[in-house]
């Protein structure tokens, strides 16, 4: 087991390295000079040289990458072009707000999707299966930014039950999760964010459960007289690794999907930071946010893989 964990962590290293290479090169696929946005248009050639030297842009690109990597490893993501604050601060603050959304959206999505999938998978072809499958296809095909807008139209514009945007009443200091006046700002973004993972998870769980139910060992269990309830327990346990893999991926979806949902609800999280960075052409922030989110995703996948191997010893040997 220890060997497997070590091997799996070692395997994640080159991936993380590759991710940082991709994030680093984002600056270079941007059209024009990376300095264009910070330099005044009438800057003399001499000034440009000085600034280039100061930012290290006069060095060869592999050198630049190593310097950049060293800075990133020490938590220095550079300065935001638009706010002049350290990118690291901006990203961590935003990530905390996104985590708040995820903290509620992930359990809701995973629980609902899993239960829907299990119920559908245990009664294949029955009306409840059709209902769940239909709902799941809808969930998968939903543009979540649109769902957000529709929810705002109903709950904020038509019936004025919940706030449309933001993260707390005007002039409030900080976010207090236990007070309804703050917490109500969470409801719509969380529901919107959870919807697509629910659909995908319900679909996968249904397929996994239905598949395991068709395996021979289930027949054996029935033949030796186990109750339907006990059989179902065996089926669920055996379908879990497959479901967990998708859960890990969906966590990544939540991170990525948050960019659209947070933009709709102007929720000051990492996705909103990203869309602001795009509008302001703020490449350091773009780079820092994407690097952080992707590394979180890599780490999540690592954890999911380890959990899977804990449940299913067959994976360890593969």
């Amino acid at each position, binding site marked *: 087991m220890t060997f497997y964990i070590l091997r799996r962590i070692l395997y994640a290293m080159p991936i993380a390295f590759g991710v940082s290479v991709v994030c680093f090169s984002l600056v270079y696929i941007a059209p024009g000079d990376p300095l264009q946005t910070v330099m005044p248009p009438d800057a003399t050639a001499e000034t440009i040289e000085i600034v280039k030297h100061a930012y290290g842009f006069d060095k060869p690109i592999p050198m630049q990458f190593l310097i950049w990597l060293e800075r990133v490893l020490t938590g220095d993501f550079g300065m935001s072009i638009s706010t002049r604050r350290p990118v690291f601060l901006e990203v961590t603050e935003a990530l905390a707000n996104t985590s708040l959304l995820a903290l509620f959206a992930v359990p809701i999505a995973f629980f609902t999707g899993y239960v829907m999938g299990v119920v559908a998978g245990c009664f294949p072809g029955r009306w409840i299966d059709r209902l769940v499958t239909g709902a799941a296809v809808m969930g998968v095909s939903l543009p979540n930014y649109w769902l957000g807008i529709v929810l705002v*139209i109903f709950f904020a514009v038509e019936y004025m039950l919940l706030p449309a945007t933001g993260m707390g009443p005007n002039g409030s200091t900080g976010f207090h999760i236990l007070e309804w006046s703050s917490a109500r700002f969470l409801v719509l973004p969380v529901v919107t964010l959870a919807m697509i993972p629910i659909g995908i998870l319900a679909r996968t769980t249904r397929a996994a459960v239905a598949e395991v139910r068709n395996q021979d060992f289930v027949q054996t269990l029935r033949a030796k007289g186990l109750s339907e309830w006990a059989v179902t327990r065996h089926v669920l346990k055996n379908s879990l690794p497959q479901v967990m893999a998708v859960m890990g*991926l969906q966590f990544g979806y939540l991170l990525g999907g948050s960019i659209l949902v947070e*933009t709709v609800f102007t929720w000051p999280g990492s996705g909103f930071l990203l869309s602001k960075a795009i509008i302001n052409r703020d490449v350091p922030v773009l780079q820092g946010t994407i690097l952080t*989110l992707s590394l979180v995703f890599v780490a999540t996948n690592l954890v999911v893989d380890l959990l899977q191997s804990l449940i299913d010893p067959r994976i360890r040997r593969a």
Partner: protein
Amino acid sequence: MSSMSDIAAPAQPLDTFEEQAAPATRVRGYWQSVFYRLRHDPVTLAFGVIVLLIVLAAICAPLIAPFDPYKESIVGRLKPLGWHDHLLGTDELGRDMLSRLIYGGRVSLLMGVVPVLIASFIGGLLGVLGGFVGGRLNTAIMRTMDVFYAFPSVLLAVAIAGAMGGGIGNGMVALTLVFIPPMCRVAETATTQVRALDFIEAARASGAGTLTIIRYHVLGNVLGPVFIYASSLVSVSILLASGLSFLGLGVRPPMPDWGLMLSTLRQSIYVVPFVCALPGLAIFVTSICCNLVSDGLRAAMDVRM
């Protein structure tokens, strides 16, 4: 090891078609049986017709759109459904919503299909190459793909399009790059499985060259999963492309596009709420129909992912 992307990743591919129990009497060919199953699947047929209608409407937009989608009107701004001749109301510049929705389908569908086609070609090529040659080349290709798998798909698309500066072309490039890794993985898995089968060995023993084997024996078994996976990506691509436009990274105004319309109309939800929701409804309907058709095709072609 589990796949590292949130695009529904194909784990184990195809049951080979040859293994199906042969019927006792009349033997149908593979394609015959596919069409037979499709003909008897009313749901897939119905949604296929809807997809066809949406595509036709987009192609024939100049013929069926009641108004010029660019014609602005200062007095007719943000009017509700059914205002005068404007069946679906007007947008923030007084342009007819129905016409803009019909025209908007052109870009949205284009951005849904083109990246998938290009990615299927490039990804499929890389996958077949890696899977067939195997060894170091395969490891190199697949490990590179793993790096791109490590990004959530929306994030990768936004990152590339954002860095490149938006626009239809850049958006398509971004989406293509997002779809190549999963496509490559589908092709690679299918190829690796086929390569180990006896009939490849038999073909080689009977003197067939590598290219002939790839063309007749490998591609025949790989194109099915690739096609099915590509068809399931169309709806993802439409959603992602509209998402990019929604963030200001895809289509630029004043060109009509569903994602962009949704984004510009968002400011007006307090004035004409239901008009503002229409472009999203168009995205939703198109995407759900594409998904169901893809599901139906998968069942009919009996490809397991």
